[in-house]
């Protein structure tokens, strides 16, 4: 019989995976964690996740995948607090638009600056990432400390997972979100975010994160992620 207890299939090192993992932790949902290598492409894996994507949630015999879709699913299947999306339709659209912004205008450049091997391409990615982050900060509502102000949401998780490993981009590419006025809010925000219990649970040790990203930074990673990232596409 299909279980009511969800299973999370994810890779320990994946910030996309952390989005689903953090969402479940924030909701206090009991779940089974399955460490997964989505590049293994075994028949068993495709039975769990039809497009072979991680993270993937198995719940009541069904599969949900795509990290953003997972976050919305978790919010709707377990509508307890914290709500990952607010009640008001416009506010919900606002969270979705800025989550989409993170996915399209920031994340590809985070990957880009790492996988590109020439200084010119890396510098362009760094600037594009900063432009995307500046727009996100500009869109933050007053009253802090979260994106929507007082209330935590999916928009915080969307950027906060990648934001918590910016030390890795600094290490390999000298990428830093500046301390100047325009970006001050970012530093306050990310400090609050990573202090949350859920972030503390999922974040691997610094050294492991750096090791995980090394093949991408050195241009030897052969994964689909690397290929897609070189084209400015991310899953």
């Amino acid at each position, binding site marked *: 019989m299909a279980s009511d207890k969800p299973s999370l299939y994810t890779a320990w090192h994946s910030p996309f995976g952390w989005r689903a993992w953090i969402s479940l932790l924030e909701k206090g949902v009991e779940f089974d964690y399955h460490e997964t290598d989505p590049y293994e492409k075994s028949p068993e894996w495709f039975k769990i996740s039809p*497009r072979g994507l991680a993270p993937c949630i198995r*719940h*009541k015999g*069904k599969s*949900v*995948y*795509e990290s953003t*879709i997972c976050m*919305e*699913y978790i919010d*709707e*299947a377990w509508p307890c607090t914290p709500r990952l999306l607010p009640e008001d*339709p*416009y506010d*919900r*659209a606002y969270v*979705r*638009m800025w989550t*989409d912004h993170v996915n*399209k205008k920031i994340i*590809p450049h985070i990957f880009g600056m790492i996988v590109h091997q020439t200084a010119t391409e890396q510098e362009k990615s760094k600037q594009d990432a900063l432009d995307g982050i500046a727009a996100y900060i500009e869109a933050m509502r007053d009253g802090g400390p979260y994106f929507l102000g007082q209330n935590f949401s999916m928009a915080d998780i969307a950027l906060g997972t990648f934001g918590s490993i910016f030390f890795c981009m600094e290490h390999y590419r000298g990428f830093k979100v500046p301390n100047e006025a325009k970006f001050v809010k970012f530093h306050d925000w990310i400090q609050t975010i990573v202090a949350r219990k859920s972030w503390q649970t999922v974040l691997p040790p610094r050294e492991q994160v750096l090791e995980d990203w090394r093949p991408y930074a050195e241009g030897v990673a052969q994964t689909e992620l690397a290929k897609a990232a070189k*084209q*400015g*596409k*991310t899953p």
Partner: protein
Amino acid sequence: MMSDPKPTFYTSWFCPFAQRVWIALLEKGIDFEYIDVDPFKKTPEWLSVSPRGLVPVLVHQGKSVYESSICIEYIDEEWPENPILPKAPYQRAYERIWADHIAKKIVPPFYAMLLKKETELQENAKKEMLEQLLVLTKAMDPTGPYFAGSQVGLVDIMLAPFAIRFFILKHYRGFQVPSGDESPFSRFNKWYIAIKERDSTVKTSASDEEYIGIYKRYTDDTGQSLVATAIRQGTALP
């Protein structure tokens, strides 16, 4: 009860992404103001309405919503009658998963087929399109005729504008979805017949001649849209 002001729908008549939102507005029976814009003219006024400078944009009570799927979900939540998305969380996730499949796996080969100059790349796009349409077809409710069953939903609206433009792919590239009852696409063709004759599709579509004309600039490589640029550069669509 105070009546809410009408939403304003900013669109371009030829844009399939904007057509999705237009269809959703009609399906819901919402009273709205229609404004046709030239999204290539990035005036300050336009950018204050549409930060990305793209259509579609829905402005309601002074606030802008953009991105076609986000507009549709906004419409569905703000005006809850005649729901576009189902209520159950898994069914909602399923619609979103397949809407995402359309965005990532069907829309790119649509444009690649038109924009790529090398025949080999056009043929690759055709092959990719058919493969991904087949994957989508297998995810459809067996009876239909719509994606999820007897009611029109998110996935139908996300796919319809592209499906009704497939004749353009035939005209310029000889692309066709195989027909016939024995074809693995027979379920897709059943969907297509149903969606094509739906009032909301008919009312939001231009004439065949108008579409053939407007898409010529993709095939002769003069297309200036962000979509065209992205396809040429091999990067993700905006």
